[in-house]
C-alpha cells in the first residue's frame, strides 16, 4: 500500500513542482508585495477615488454584460434546441467559433462595426442621420464584451435545453399552462443551475478581460486597463499587485459562490 502511494506521489510530483514554482510562489510574492508600501496599499482600490471609479465601472459593465448575455444566450439556446432546420449544426459551430478568438480581434470587430469607417456609420449616413460611431465608448465596450460572452452562453444553453425533460413541458401544456407559465415554471427552474454556472463564468471573464478593452482604448476605464497602466506607465508595482489581488479575489469569489450555490450536482460539471 505504501509503495502504491509512493507511486502516486511520483506521478503527481512533476505537476506539483511546476505548479508550486510557477504559480503558488509568484502569487504568494504578489500577495506580500503591497505590504512594502504600507498596509493601506491593500485597500488602495477603496481609498483612491480614481481606482474606486474604475472598479465600479468594471463591476457595473460586467454585471450588465452578464445579464444580457444570459438572457440572449438562453433565448438562442432554447430556440436552437427546439428548431430543426438545414444548416443548424453549421450555424451552431459558427456561433461558438468566437470562443477561440483573442480579445484583440473582438475589439477590432467592434471597430469594424462602430468605428469611423464602420458599418453602422455607413448605415446611419445612408439614412441621413450623419455618421454614428460608438466603438470607443461604453457602447463599444459593452458590445465587445457581449461578443466574447455570447458563444459560451449559447453553447451551454443549447446543450442544457436539448437535455431538458420534454415530458415536463408536455405535462404542463396538457394541464393548460400558458406559454409564459411554461417558461416561468418549467424552463427557468430547469435551467437555473446552468444559468448560475454560466453567469459566474461570464462575469469573471468580463471582470478580467484585457485584450478587447485595450484594443478599443476606450474612454471608459476598466480595472484591467488601470492595472496595466500602473505597471507599465508608472512602474508602480505594489499598486499593480494590490489591484490584481482585488481583481483576482472578485473573480475567484464569484466562481466559488456559484459552484457552491449550485450544489454537489453541478460540482462535476
Amino acid at each position, binding site marked *: 500500500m505504501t509503495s502504491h502511494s509512493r507511486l502516486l506521489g511520483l506521478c503527481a510530483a512533476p505537476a506539483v513542482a511546476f505548479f508550486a514554482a510557477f504559480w503558488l510562489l509568484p502569487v504568494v510574492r504578489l500577495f506580500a508585495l503591497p505590504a512594502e508600501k504600507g498596509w493601506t496599499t491593500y485597500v488602495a482600490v477603496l481609498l483612491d477615488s480614481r481606482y474606486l471609479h474604475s472598479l465600479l465601472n468594471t463591476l457595473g459593465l460586467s454585471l450588465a454584460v452578464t445579464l444580457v448575455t444570459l438572457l440572449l444566450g438562453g433565448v*438562442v439556446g432554447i430556440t436552437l434546441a427546439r428548431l430543426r432546420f438545414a444548416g443548424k449544426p453549421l450555424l451552431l459551430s459558427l456561433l461558438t467559433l468566437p470562443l477561440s478568438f483573442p480579445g484583440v480581434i473582438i475589439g477590432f*470587430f467592434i471597430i469594424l462595426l462602430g468605428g469611423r469607417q464602420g458599418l453602422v456609420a455607413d448605415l446611419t449616413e445612408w439614412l441621413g442621420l450623419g455618421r454614428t460611431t460608438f466603438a470607443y465608448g461604453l457602447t463599444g465596450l459593452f458590445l465587445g464584451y457581449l461578443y466574447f460572452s455570447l458563444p459560451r452562453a449559447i453553447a451551454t444553453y443549447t446543450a442544457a435545453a436539448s437535455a431538458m425533460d420534454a415530458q415536463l413541458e408536455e405535462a404542463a401544456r396538457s394541464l393548460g399552462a400558458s406559454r409564459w407559465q411554461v417558461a416561468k415554471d418549467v424552463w427557468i427552474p430547469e435551467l437555473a443551475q446552468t444559468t448560475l454556472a454560466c453567469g459566474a463564468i461570464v462575469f469573471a471573464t468580463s471582470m478580467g478581460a484585457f485584450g478587447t478593452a485595450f484594443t478599443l482604448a476606450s474612454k471608459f476605464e476598466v480595472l484591467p486597463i488601470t492595472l496595466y497602466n500602473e505597471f507599465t506607465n508608472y512602474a508602480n508595482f505594489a499598486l499593480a499587485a494590490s489591484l490584481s489581488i482585488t481583481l483576482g479575489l472578485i473573480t475567484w469569489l464569484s466562481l466559488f459562490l456559484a459552484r457552491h450555490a449550485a450544489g454537489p450536482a453541478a460540482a462535476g460539471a
Partner: protein
Amino acid sequence: MPHPRQLPLLLPALTALVSVFMLAPIALSVLAGLVNNYSTGLASGLTLRWISEVLDVYGSTVAASLLLALLCVGGSLLLGVPCAYALARSRSRWARLFEELLTLPVAVPGLATALALILAYGQFSSFRQSFAFILVGHLVFTLPFMVRTVGAAFRRHELLALEEAARSLGANFGQRFMGVLVPAVLPAIVAGSLMVFTLSVGAVSLNWKLHTPLTRTLPVGLADSYASMRIEIGSAYTLVFLLVILPVLWGLQWLGHLIEKHHGT
C-alpha cells in the same frame, strides 16, 4: 426528443438578430481583408495584397503562436496525465487540496497571473525574454483543463477493474499505465489536448507577446496598431488568424470524434 412545436415568433427573431451580430463582423472582416479599398467596397476589386503584407510583417508570430500551442499541449500531457491519474486514485486530503489549488489560475484573470510571474521571475532577464517564459505562463493556465478532463476519465469504475485485471496478470506499473490506462482514456486525452490548444491559441493568438501585457518592452502594442492601422490590414490579419487556426482546430475536433467512435466511449 423535444417536440418541434411552434415557438413564439420572438424567439427565432431574437436568434436571427444575435446570429447577425455574431457573424456579421466575421464576414465583414473577411471581405475587408480581400478588397483593394475598404471604403469603396467590392467595386475596388479583390486583392491578396493585404494578406501578403500581413504575412511579411507578422508571419513569424503566426508560426511562433502555433509552435507555442503545440508545446503547450505536449507539456500539459507530460505533466498533466500522470498527475490526473495520481489525483484520481489518491484518497489523501493533500490530493484534494492540490486539485482545488490547481483550478485557481483559471479562476483569476490571466493578467494577475502574468503580473505575479513577471514580479517573481522578471529579474532573470534571459528567462523573462525567452519563449520558455510565455510557455510557462500558458502551461499554468491550461494544465487544470487537462488534469480535470483526463482525471474524470481515470475515475470511471470499469477502469479500476481493468487495471486490477492487468495487475493480477502480472503487468508492472509502466505496462499498466501505457498499455491499459492511457489507451482507455485516449478520448479524454484528445479532448483535453484540443481544449489546451484552443486556449493557448485564443489567449495569445498571433501577437503572443500580449500574453504578458505587462512587459515594459512591449512596443506600443499590436492592439494599438490595430486601432490605428488601415482597416484592410487589420482585416487581413484576422483573416490570416482564421485561415491558420481553423483548419487545425477542426482537424483536432475531427480526430477527437474519430477516436471516440473507435473506442465507443
